[in-house]
């Protein structure tokens, strides 16, 4: 008889922290350099070599914990987890057992009904990565460049109930970590790796079913597909009256199935014990408060604020808020040009098109908020047409500089010669006696209107600065 089971999924996510050096030594954390070039006695596990904790790795873990709503352990210690494997020549990994840096925490995931579901975290701890093994037919080669790289392990409660929710969780977590800049979260480079625990139980049963651990999912979609397969597999076993055995299974991405790796009987006895070479990390409450005050807004909070403060659509706000640098850029432009909607339109369409076309994030491009404000101003004033604006934007994106300067220097459809402009200025002043009267009455904006009329008459070819000067002179003459 087929029935629907209740699914409980917990995740363990390893995130490589964005530090310049390893967790316990000054070796660089480099990706793609020749094997065994960023190594020293500490990360090679030489006897007697002493680890010294990386301050930045601790800070990034604490910042992550605070962003994810964790409480910080004011007294945190490190432990040795013993096992024998060539990727860990000390024969133990330095990690945290009973006093991790961060406890509890919550990540909200979006639900299909538009609501949000809180997923509880158990803990976040800091540990060292192992070396990388490259396998050949009968030998393996070990490269220690990765050994000792700082990893932050995030462990959730089994609050997730479907493959979709697990994928939504990983996506939300990745967004937050990218946003606060603690990790590159590049799954291809192994910056973010995930193990999954999944169990099924019949409806009405409170106790969790027997859990199966899944390993080797390198992408969010990999974790999703592995879970979908595993939930279906366990359902079939239970439907047929079978029992689930506690085991570890490996996701095989090529064949799209999970394969038995080891059963509970082979489970390791890690013999955790206190790491005598590392002293405790003590973070007093006032330091935690100071760190908390330095935190950036969470993407979800910023999304709501951007929509409210600048009056832009929710969709625009969610795209902008997902990328901290992009949101910063938007706010700089919106504040200078005074209208959020116009700033958002330009960034959402033209700037993001360039970001995609040139595979260059807004942080790496040459475009400054000031340049975009100039460009928007020139288009609004009809100084240049849309096509010219797009060309100038791409130039500023690739090479920087001031669009206003470009327009002036290259005479892009501009007329600056006062001899040619005099006629237009005269015509406008004569045709708008009311504006002249307004100006005489002290209404400064009237001059702006007249400048605009001259620009219009010149079909956008006049230099607004020169026109401004000429209009000012002419009005002064009228006054005298």
């Amino acid at each position: 008889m087929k029935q629907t089971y209740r699914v409980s999924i917990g995740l363990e996510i390893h995130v490589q922290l964005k530090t310049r050096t390893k967790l316990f030594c000054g070796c660089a954390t480099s990706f793609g350099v020749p094997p065994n070039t960023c190594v020293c006695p500490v990360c090679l596990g030489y006897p007697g070599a002493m680890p010294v904790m990386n301050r930045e790795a601790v800070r990034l873990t604490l910042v992550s914990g605070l962003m994810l709503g964790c409480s910080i352990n004011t007294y945190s210690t490190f432990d040795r987890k013993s096992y024998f494997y060539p990727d860990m020549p000390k024969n133990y990994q330095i990690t945290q057992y009973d006093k991790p840096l961060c406890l509890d925490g919550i990540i909200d995931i979006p639900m299909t009904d538009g609501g949000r579901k809180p997923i509880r975290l158990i803990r976040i701890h800091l540990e060292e990565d192992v070396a990388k093994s490259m396998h050949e037919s009968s030998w393996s080669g070990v490269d220690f460049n990765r050994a000792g790289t700082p990893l932050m392990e995030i462990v959730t409660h089994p609050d997730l109930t479907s493959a979709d929710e697990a994928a939504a969780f990983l996506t939300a977590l990745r967004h937050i970590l990218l946003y606060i800049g603690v990790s590159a979260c590049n799954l291809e480079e192994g910056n973010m790796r995930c193990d999954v625990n999944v169990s099924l139980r019949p409806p009405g049963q409170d106790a969790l079913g027997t859990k199966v651990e899944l390993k080797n999912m390198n992408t969010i979609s990999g974790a999703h597909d592995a879970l979908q397969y595993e939930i279906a597999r366990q359902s079939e076993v239970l439907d047929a009256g079978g029992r689930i055995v506690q085991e570890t299974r490996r996701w095989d991405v090529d064949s799209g199935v999970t394969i038995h790796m080891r059963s509970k009987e082979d489970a390791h006895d890690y013999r955790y014990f206190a790491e005598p070479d590392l002293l405790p990390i003590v973070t007093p409450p006032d330091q935690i408060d100071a760190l908390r005050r330095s935190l950036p807004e969470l993407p979800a909070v910023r999304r709501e604020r951007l929509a409210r403060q600048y009056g832009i659509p929710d969709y625009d706000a969610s795209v902008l808020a997902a990328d901290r640098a992009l949101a910063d850029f938007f706010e700089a432009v919106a504040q200078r040009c005074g209208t959020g909607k116009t700033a958002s339109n330009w960034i959402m369409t033209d700037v993001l098109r360039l970001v995609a076309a040139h595979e260059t994030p807004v942080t790496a491009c040459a475009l400054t908020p000031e340049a975009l404000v100039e460009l928007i101003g020139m288009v609004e004033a009809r100084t240049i047409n849309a096509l010219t604006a797009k060309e100038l934007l791409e130039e500023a994106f690739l090479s920087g500089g001031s669009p206003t300067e470009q327009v002036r220097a290259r005479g892009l459809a501009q007329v600056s010669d006062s001899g040619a402009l005099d006629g237009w200025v005269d015509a406008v002043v004569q045709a708008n006696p009311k504006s002249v009267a307004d100006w005489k009455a002290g209404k400064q904006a009237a001059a702006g209107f007249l400048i605009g009329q001259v620009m219009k008459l010149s079909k956008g070819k006049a230099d607004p600065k020169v026109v401004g000067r000429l209009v000012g002179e002419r009005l002064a003459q009228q006054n005298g």
Partner: protein
Amino acid sequence: MAAEEIDVAYVAQLATIRLTDEEARLFQRQLPVILAYVDKLRCLDVSGIEPTSHGHPVYNVLREDVPEPGLDPERVLANAPARLRDTFKVPRIVES
């Protein structure tokens, strides 16, 4: 005082140490004596004392995140029992 029972064969397996039957029997006899000796510490009253794994009240020994050059790879690999190009050569270690 009766000390905790230690399974010498299991500990040897965890530590990947091969013991002869004679050695296992010897250690099985000696370990309870050692534990009983350490057990004498239990006569101390430690109520109200925070457990710690360090003898000094020193915390937050931290290093700045500044890279230093690594060792010369040739020197590093000179210590390898065997080499596979620029890596340490070990028996194939795929968990299946």
